[in-house]
């Protein structure tokens, strides 16, 4: 409680006065001004009652079961930091851990491509808020020489950010290889170059 820059509050004054009364009663020995039949609730009693109520309340633990088991597929872990979805996707002939991506179809904006990717991995009725029309980061890579053609030398991957509004993913049709990871754990799964580019636009 702020003691230095405050005055006594109503509750504290009531408490002090009642303490005075009690003390006077004890000293003067049965000098009852008020009728003994009257039951008065003392401020101290109220404080004790509130204390009891607080002790009886049990808050939910901050470290959930998923943390203890290190189960990275559940969304209920690491509640104090942001989690990102990683999926295992097949690019070319390699199976890689990536942020979910979809190829751009001509005729749609980049944002709608991103939302389509989200829908394919998390189900159609997903409540997520995409932040803005512009991409946040880019990763470009060149195809290995075997697949390179005249026009398609490489690919550019644009990243968008979106916040999941509801944590209810029961309708999601996720395949087995997905993970919810924090920024620090990204390094365990992503390749170095990719990771470097991704880390630039991720906070926390």
């Amino acid at each position, binding site marked *: 409680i702020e003691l230095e820059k405050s005055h006594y509050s109503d509750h504290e004054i009531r408490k002090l006065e009642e303490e005075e009364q009690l003390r006077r009663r004890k000293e003067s020995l049965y000098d009852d001004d008020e009728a003994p039949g009257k039951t008065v609730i003392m401020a101290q009693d109220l404080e004790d009652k509130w204390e009891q109520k607080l002790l009886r309340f049990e*808050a*939910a633990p901050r470290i959930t079961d998923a943390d203890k088991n290190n189960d990275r597929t559940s969304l209920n872990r690491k509640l104090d930091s942001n989690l990102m979805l990683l999926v295992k996707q097949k690019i070319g002939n390699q199976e890689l851990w990536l942020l979910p991506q979809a190829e751009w179809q001509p005729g749609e904006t980049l944002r709608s491509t991103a939302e389509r990717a989200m829908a394919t991995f998390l189900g159609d009725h997903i409540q997520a808020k995409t932040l803005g029309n*512009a991409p946040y980061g880019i990763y470009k890579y060149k195809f290995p020489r075997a697949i390179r053609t005249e026009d398609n030398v490489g690919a550019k991957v644009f990243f968008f950010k979106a916040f999941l509004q509801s944590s209810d993913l029961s309708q999601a049709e996720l395949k087995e290889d997905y993970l919810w990871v924090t920024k620090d754990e990204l390094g365990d799964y992503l390749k170095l170059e990719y990771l470097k580019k991704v880390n630039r636009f991720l906070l926390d």
Partner: protein
Amino acid sequence: SKSVSPRALCSFFFFSSWLPQAVPFRGSHWQTSLLAFRASLPVRAQPKKKKKVDVRREQAQKDRMKKKIKKLEKAAPEMIPIEDFITPLKYSDSNRVRSLPPLSFEESERRVLLMKKWCLFKQKQDKAEKKAIQTLVEAQQEALKELRLESEELYQAAIRRDEGLFPFQRDGPNYTPPLPGYDAPEGKCIDITKVYTQ
């Protein structure tokens, strides 16, 4: 029908008054009975005078009211008192002042050092935040540059303002996650804020 409509009754009365044809028709309210001779002279001018005076009096009253209203309107509108800036008098009683022991030397030293550490911590935090925002912006600019090289149309679509973004709402961070199946206790909140109209 059992109940006779009042209209029928009135009409009956009306017809009855027509019967004594010799009696002059009751024109003004100055004549109290039909058959009695005109007791009071129905001075025709008087009702008119009354009307004039009434009209004049009423007009004068209206003007006075209008003048008062104008005066009130001209006066500057009363300031609405800001409740937060006025300490109620009951809180400046002397019995409210706390009696605390004075700060010891160690305590004040501890506080000063703590303040310095806090300043340093906050400075580092601020610098880190600003750096993060800088990298964020740089990454986005780079991405937009690359996109422009790819296709102008997509670039224009990306630069467009997102109208649905603001107002942006997100639940604040809680210290503990919500308890599953917790029934919050019901309570009634009565709003006693004073509303002032100017």
